[in-house]
Structure formats: structure tokens, C-alpha cells
């Protein structure tokens, strides 16, 4: 073997290049954190209330449900698919669970029911996408309409009121432990668990493999269909859980909770650096994306921006976020290329 003869410097050079790459990949989440910090700092500078206990609690509570949905969605997006039906699942689950709880169900069966409904919806999407090989966008747009219709059909103009719900559930939505509200805590635990699994377990990496190249994944013996099914199942379950949490937080629900949230969730995922073309990104990024979007919304109100301007500014900031990120990535890639040649 000629191992000894191998010149050492190419390896070293590659190494420093890689560290830079690593940095950029982390910077993807880092830049989000920086943007967030800047936003919070500016807003708090203008209005100290923004960083009061109540202010922070509000933001965390507002983020929790969106972030939970974003975590589920990013799992699906990483496999190069899409789940547009999450919004309607939340609406259906929030109403049906509320209906059952109001009619005397216990809290635990209620929560289980909610997650189970989500799981069934996810399973349906997953089976259609993975086993029937129907394009994800069409399927989930279809189930969006179907699930929404079913939800409205069941509700038929009725409303669930907070008074009818068990107090235990409402305290889950608004209570806290050691000063931290339950909702963000639940989201945090779910996010860490899924993030850890995706990064550290062979089967977790397979989600990325599928998104990166479905054909290659098949040839490498990755159980493509099963993984995609699992991605949808998890997304559905989390949407179900989000529905229950929605009910817990808002107490009053009609059938169209989270109506139209599908694009909001996808924005969060995209801003969080999960590539819409699959294979890239992390659930942490997605959750951060949700936090950033929510914070922008809150900050604009606190900064007393004219409500007619709020949506436009949110859109502009979203574009700015993805553009800056892209430009940064291109710059670094070029830097890297120069270094690797002249270094």
C-alpha cells in the first residue's frame, strides 16, 4: 500500500474548506438567530413592554403551534414532498375534540382522539403519496378540501365555547411550569426528539437520502415508501396534537381554526432553511423560522405599524430573509472555491 506516500496537504486543505462549509451550514440557523435577535432588540428598544414577562410569554405561546406544525412539515419536505392539508387537520381536530370534550369525554381520551384523527389523515396522505405514487401536491390539496369539508360538515355553524371544556385542558393551554408555559415546552420536546432522531439515527438519515435522490435511495435499499409514509404520519399526528393544543389555548373554536395556514407553515419551513426540493434542512431551522415569522408579526403590532402595512412588511421581510441567505451561500461557495485552489 502506498498510504505513506500520500501527500498530506490536500487532506488538510480539504479539511479547512470543510470547516468553512460546516460553518455556513450552521450559519443557516445562526443567521436566523441573529435576525431574530436584531428584531427583538430593535422592538424592545422602542417599546420595553416587548420584553416583559407577558410579552415573551405571548410570543412563545403564539409560536408553539406554528412551530409544531413546521416541525412536522419539515419532515415531509425533507423527503421532497409537501403536506398542504395540515391546516384543515388542525381545524377538524380542534372542533371534533372540543365537541367530544364538551360532551363529557375525559381529557386523556380527548387528546388521544385528536392525535388519532391527525394520524388517520396523515396515514391517508402517506398511503396515497407513497404507495399509490400520486404527486404529493395534488393529494394533499385534495385532502385539504376533503378534510376541511368534513370539518365544516360536522360543525355546521356550531361553536365550542371555553366554558364547556374541562378546566384541565384550558390550563394546559395557558398554564405553565416554573414560569414556562406548557405549549412551547411541548413543542420544544417534540422538536428536540425529532431533530435528534433525524441527525443521529441511520433511519433518520434515510429521510434526507430520499429527499436528496429518491431513485438512488431505492437502489440503496432504503425503504422509501415506508419512510414517506412515516413522514406523513408524523406530520398528521403533530397536526392532530396542534389541533388539541389550539383548542386548549383558544378555548373557543369553530370549524375553521388554522384555515389557510398551509402556506404559513410552508413559509416557516422555507425561512428556516429547509429546501423545498428536499434533502436539506433541519427541524430546528423550521421551528426557528416559525419563531421568526411570529415575532415579526408581533413586533410590527408593538411598533405601532399601520395595520395596512403589516402584511406588506411581513412579505418583504420574508423575501429579504431568503434572499440574504441565498446571497450569503453563493458568496461563501465562491470563497471556498478560491481557497481550495489557491490555499
Amino acid at each position, binding site marked *: 500500500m502506498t498510504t505513506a506516500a500520500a501527500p498530506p496537504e490536500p487532506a488538510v486543505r480539504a479539511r479547512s474548506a470543510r470547516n468553512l462549509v460546516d460553518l455556513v451550514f450552521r450559519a443557516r440557523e445562526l443567521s436566523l438567530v441573529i435576525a431574530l435577535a436584531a428584531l427583538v432588540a430593535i422592538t424592545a428598544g422602542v417599546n420595553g413592554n416587548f420584553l416583559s414577562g407577558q410579552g415573551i410569554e405571548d410570543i412563545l405561546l403564539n409560536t408553539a403551534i406554528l412551530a409544531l406544525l413546521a416541525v412536522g412539515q419539515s419532515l415531509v419536505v425533507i423527503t421532497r414532498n409537501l403536506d398542504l392539508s395540515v391546516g384543515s387537520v388542525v381545524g377538524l381536530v380542534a372542533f371534533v375534540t372540543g365537541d367530544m370534550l364538551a360532551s363529557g369525554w375525559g381529557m386523556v381520551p380527548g387528546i388521544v382522539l385528536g392525535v388519532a384523527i391527525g394520524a388517520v389523515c396523515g396515514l391517508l396522505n402517506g398511503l396515497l403519496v407513497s404507495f399509490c405514487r400520486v404527486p404529493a401536491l395534488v393529494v394533499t390539496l385534495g385532502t385539504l378540501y376533503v378534510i376541511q369539508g368534513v370539518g365544516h360538515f360536522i360543525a355546521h355553524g356550531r361553536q365550542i365555547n371555553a366554558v364547556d371544556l374541562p378546566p384541565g385542558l384550558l390550563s394546559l393551554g395557558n398554564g405553565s411550569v416554573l414560569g414556562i408555559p406548557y405549549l412551547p415546552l411541548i413543542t420544544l420536546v417534540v422538536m428536540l426528539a425529532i431533530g435528534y432522531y433525524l441527525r443521529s439515527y441511520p433511519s433518520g438519515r434515510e429521510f434526507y437520502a430520499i429527499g436528496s*435522490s429518491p431513485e*438512488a435511495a431505492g437502489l440503496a435499499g432504503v425503504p422509501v415508501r415506508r419512510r414517506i409514509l412515516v413522514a406523513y404520519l408524523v406530520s398528521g399526528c403533530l397536526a392532530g396534537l396542534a389541533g388539541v393544543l389550539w383548542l386548549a389555548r383558544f378555548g373557543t373554536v369553530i370549524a375553521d381554526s388554522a384555515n389557510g395556514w398551509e402556506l404559513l407553515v410552508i413559509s416557516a419551513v422555507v425561512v428556516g432553511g429547509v429546501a423545498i426540493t428536499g434533502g*436539506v434542512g433541519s427541524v430546528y431551522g423550521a421551528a426557528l423560522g416559525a419563531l421568526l415569522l411570529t415575532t415579526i408579526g408581533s413586533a410590527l403590532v408593538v411598533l405601532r405599524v399601520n395595520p395596512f402595512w403589516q402584511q406588506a412588511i411581513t412579505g418583504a421581510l420574508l423575501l429579504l430573509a431568503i434572499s440574504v441567505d441565498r446571497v450569503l451561500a453563493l458568496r461563501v461557495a465562491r470563497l471556498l*472555491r478560491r481557497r481550495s485552489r489557491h490555499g
Partner: protein
Amino acid sequence: MSGPPTLALANVSKSFGAVRALRDVSLELFPGEAHALAGENGAGKSTLVKTLAGVHRPDSGQVLLGGEPVTFAGPADAQQAGVAVIYQEPTLFPDLSVAENIFMGRQPRTSLGRIDRKAMHAQARRLFERLGVTLDPEQPARGLSIADQQLVEIAKAISRDARVLVMDEPTAALSGNEVARLFSVVEALREQGCAILFISHRLDEIFSLCQRVTTLRDGAWIASEPVEGLTHDDLIRRMVGRDLDALYPKQDTTAGEVALQVERLTREGYFTDVSFQVRRGEIVALAGLVGAGRSEVARAVFGIDRWDAGSVTVAGRPLPAGSPTAAMGAGLALVPEDRRQQGLVMELSIERNIGLTGLRSLRRGVTISRAAERDRARDWALRLQLKFGRLSDGVGVLSGGNQQKVVLAKWLATEPSVLIVDEPTRGIDVGTKAEVHRLLSELAGQGIAVLMISSDLPEVLGMADRVLVMHEGRLTAEISRAEATEESVMSAATGRAA
């Protein structure tokens, strides 16, 4: 060859619609033998490979593992049974690191079932050392050149410690050095009792690596026999069914005026200060090791990438940077090295692909004339002996070599004055290779300037009027036809001579 074969096919047939890719083919792979599979483009080699790998299920016949019939439900089953496969087209995950690509699904784990990244990178590094490659296991697979991709595929396959190693044209994108390394590794595996199935259109490789060879023609089994005692011509006759003329028929032509002039061209990070010219009627080869930057020069000249400094002149007119449309307008054509991504639109039909470079010339009024499009496609398909069912079939179902012919057809149909071909005969069988060579020299004879990038050294030496050699992004030598020898080219390519 005592005992049952490790893996065998018995009377296997496989059809795709009307195409009978395999008819009643049998093949036995014994432990410790390197077995070659030869045949023209579209003969059914890759189909056979995919049948062994569990990708295709035979319509009839059986796959035998250790003498017992098995049914592979998918690639996972075959892998489980100890069959490692290098497919003809690289199958990498562009977003994942090289190491993850190699070990996907069987990463080294800690006691808790987590991935042990350190161990994984170390193992990948060891593999690359064995193959003599300097690739960083932690870099993403995206952006690797075709050759590097192929090397990762090889590393993936040999890391499986398989009982059977199947390699479908693993060397098509590689140059001499890497091939030699690969062979020494394969040799070692063979000695450990691994059965090898090897496919290549470079006959020399078959003779130097393999003990036995099976030949296919039009999906049918022709012969299985020891390599020893066989000549090149014998093998070609079995493949083609007739004798072939000389392989490298380049006639001397008198070079005309300068058609392509490249002046101090630089693209940072890829190549520096590249200057050369190609005259009408001349075939100039661009040689070098994998990753020397040859393809990058071609891409820049054709306008795919922007260059940072320098100039490109075609027939005395400067070309703007970064515009393939302008390059085509000036009479340039580029047959790219990666036919799947760059050469063809896999979902479109043969005729549409060939027509894609002539959307202007096929116009009658505002609309495209389908008749003209079909004529153009048929004309070139026949000239290049394309093996196809109907012109309206998707190119995706063609065999690798036939796909390459479609790429050639697509560009020759533009009737260029300067033709750049990047690995024009990659994956093309001997018969067609001769055809392509004849075609290139015929084109040169008609006054077209040809710039040929090739990693096939005999091809370079046989075809080129002049050989330019690149090493690490710089032009290191210009060697005339008379002085060009394997030694002179290789020493310039490895940077040993200036």
C-alpha cells in the same frame, strides 16, 4: 470452479413492452473469478445487472444464489444476499456527505444505535486510501465531477464486503491511473473469494482483469468462455456478429485557418491561463487526469459558465462570456460529458431531443414542423446506427450507449463549424466507437474544427492531430501527433514534465 456458482442466472428473459432486452440468458459467477460481460450498446448488459441486483424481476427464468433459486423483491434483498452493485449511472445523494453516501443504511453505530460519525469518516478515509483517491469524506456529493462520483460508487460497492461485486462500466469516466488502482483492489477482492462481474467497452480492460467472458447480442446469450486464447477480434465478432475495420481511422488532413482561438482563459478555482487554438480540419485532443479541468474549459468556451479573464474567438469574432446561445450562433457545439443531466431531457422522445438544438431551423412560420423534426431525427439516428423502437419513444428507455448517440445526433444536426466533444465515446461499444471515430474524422475532413476531451488514451493517440495536456487547471503541454505517446502524455498529465 468446484461447488455451485455464488450467483447465477438460469434462462432469464426480460421484456420492456415490445423490447426484449434479455432472451433466455444464463450466466454463472463462481467465487474467485472475474467474469466479463461484453456486448454492443443495448445488448442487455445493464438489464442483466439490474436483474441480478433485484431492480428488475425476470419475466421468466430464475436467479440462483448458491445454487438455490431466490426472488429478490428489491435491491435491499439482493444487498442482503451479499450482492454489491455499481450501476452504470451514478446514484448518489447530492445533499449528503460522501461518507454518508457510502454507508447509507449501514452506518457504523455506537452501542445506543446512534451513528458513529467519527468511525464512519475514518472508514471512508481508509477506503479512499485503498483506492488511492484524495476525496474528503465529509464534503457533500453535490458538485463532484462524474469521475469522482464514479469513484464514490466504487468505494460504496467495495465497502460492502460482498460475495458478489457487479460493476456496470465503472471505468467509463476514469483515466488510466484510477483504473489501475481499481483493478488492484478488485484483484485483491477476487483473491479473497469474491465473484466479480465486470462490464466495459474497453476491451483491453476485459483482457487484463477477467478470466472468463460472456457475450450478449440483442439480448441473447452468445457465448461464455475463458478469456485466455481469445483475441480482440474474436470478442468483437461475437459481439457484433461480423468483423470490424480499424478502430482509429483518422486520416491526415491539412489544417486550415484558425476556427477556435482561446486566449489566456481563466475561471477562478477551476482553470488558469488556458490558451490554445483549433484549426479547421483539425482534431485536437485535450488530455489529462480526472479533475484536471478539461470539462470546465469546454463549459466555459461554450458559455455554460462565465469566465473571469481571457477571451474566446470563433472564426475571428470574439464570443461573449456565459451565453450558449451566442456560442451556438457562432457555430459552436458541445457534446457534454454528463448525458443524463446535460445532454438529454430524459422524459422527452428521441425526436424531440434531437430537435431541441434546432428549434429555429425547424420552424415553418411560427410553428415547428413535426415532419421536419422527424426527418432530422431519423436521418441522424440512421447515420449513427441508433438502436431504437420508435422515434417517439422516450430517450430514458434507451441503453446508455444509445443515449450517447442521441446526444451526438442532437449536436451534429446543428452542423457546427467547431465541435467540442467531452468524452464522446463514453459507454459506447466498439462498433459504434469506430463509427463515431470515423464520423469525427469525416467531419474534420469537411473542414470542421474538433476539440476532443477524452480519458481514453488510445483514443487520444489514435485520433488527435495534436494533444493538449492539462494538469491541475493549467495547460502543461502541447504534443504533436508524431511525438504523442502514452509516456509523453501521461507524464505531462501527472505534472512530471512541463
